[in-house]
């Protein structure tokens, strides 16, 4: 799936913007403001939400500047449609002076930011776009981390559950082996069952080692280990 490019405006690669705006005057204003900001941008304009969705499907964009009043979609619904199509791409909503409330609502349902068209300046636009891309990037990374963490936690829990029946299988085999003589042809069969359990246990142990460290220590940045506890020798009473 496509993820927005992390590089903010000002780095070498131009930011690819999709301006979804049906008013040619407003579209021109945005283009002008962006050109004035002096940062390399590749801009494309779509006048309808249907065209925007097609473009988002076919091409790669770093951000969508979205007017909510379009010929084929009105209000908050416009944001929902675009966000549903491309949940990974940051959206900055363009609103009029009278509908700031809708801007706030748009942010609630997934837009990164809203801009009142009448207030747009080069600097504000540049800053908003940079922050929207960076914030979205951070949000995506956090979601990825959380997803990975849940998967690892599930894997750990599954290992835990598997170790219980493995204990029973291995234990009962061991008991049966103790009951029969080594010459009994079944002895080797039970031994094989035990051998296979050891193999499985090795797999779950390795997997648990990964899940443990990944979920509890490494993910999320700093690795936290209580050295004293980690290297502490078991307190076995001294016997003389």
């Amino acid at each position, binding site marked *: 799936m496509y993820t927005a490019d992390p590089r903010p405006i000002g780095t070498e690669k131009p930011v690819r913007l999709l301006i979804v705006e049906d008013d040619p005057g407003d579209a021109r204003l945005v283009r002008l403001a962006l050109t004035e900001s002096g940062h390399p941008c590749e801009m494309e304009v779509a006048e309808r939400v249907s065209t925007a969705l097609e473009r988002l499907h076919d091409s790669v964009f770093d951000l969508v500047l979205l007017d909510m009043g379009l010929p084929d979609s009105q209000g908050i619904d416009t944001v929902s449609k675009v966000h549903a199509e491309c949940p990974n791409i940051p959206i900055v909503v363009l609103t009029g002076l009278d509908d700031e409330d809708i801007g706030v609502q748009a942010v609630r349902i997934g837009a990164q930011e809203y801009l009142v068209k009448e207030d747009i300046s080069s600097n504000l636009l540049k800053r908003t776009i940079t922050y929207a891309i960076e914030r979205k990037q951070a949000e995506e990374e956090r979601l990825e981390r959380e997803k990975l963490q849940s998967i690892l936690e599930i894997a750990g829990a599954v290992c835990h*559950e598997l*170790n*219980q029946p493995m*204990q029973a299988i291995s*234990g009962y085999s*061991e008991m049966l082996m103790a009951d029969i003589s080594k010459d009994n042809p079944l002895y080797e069969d039970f031994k094989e069952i035990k051998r296979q359990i050891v193999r499985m246990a090795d797999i779950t142990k390795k997997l648990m080692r990964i899940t443990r460290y990944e979920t509890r220590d490494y993910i999320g940045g700093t690795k936290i280990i209580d050295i004293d*506890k980690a290297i502490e020798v*078991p307190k076995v009473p001294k016997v003389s």
Partner: protein
Amino acid sequence: MNNTILVVDDEEAIRNLLERAFTKAGYTVHSAESGEEALEILKQENIQVMFLDLKLPGMSGVELCTKIRKDKPIALIYAMTAYTSLFELADCREAGFDDYFTKPFELKVLFKAAEDAFEKIERWKKR
């Protein structure tokens, strides 16, 4: 000589397994499926060697060990666990477990632990 062992595990298959295995090895075995049941047994019986599963319904194995340890400073208490982490092990030591066994373990490992445990208790009694 008292050769009684307490086994606490909520999984019936494991409980039965250990009960049968230890009985066959010559020990008297009491078993419980929860910490609460284990404490009831300990009120009635003088048991100094026990194997506790860490993940129990209600009171955890760590909590159970902490409670037992208060009254039985010289008992040998072993943890059985299907999932070990450094954090869990640190908790185990703090709770007063003498050692732990990660499932799946071999029965002979537990037999050896039980044998050593009773030997230690005998030696401590002589001192």
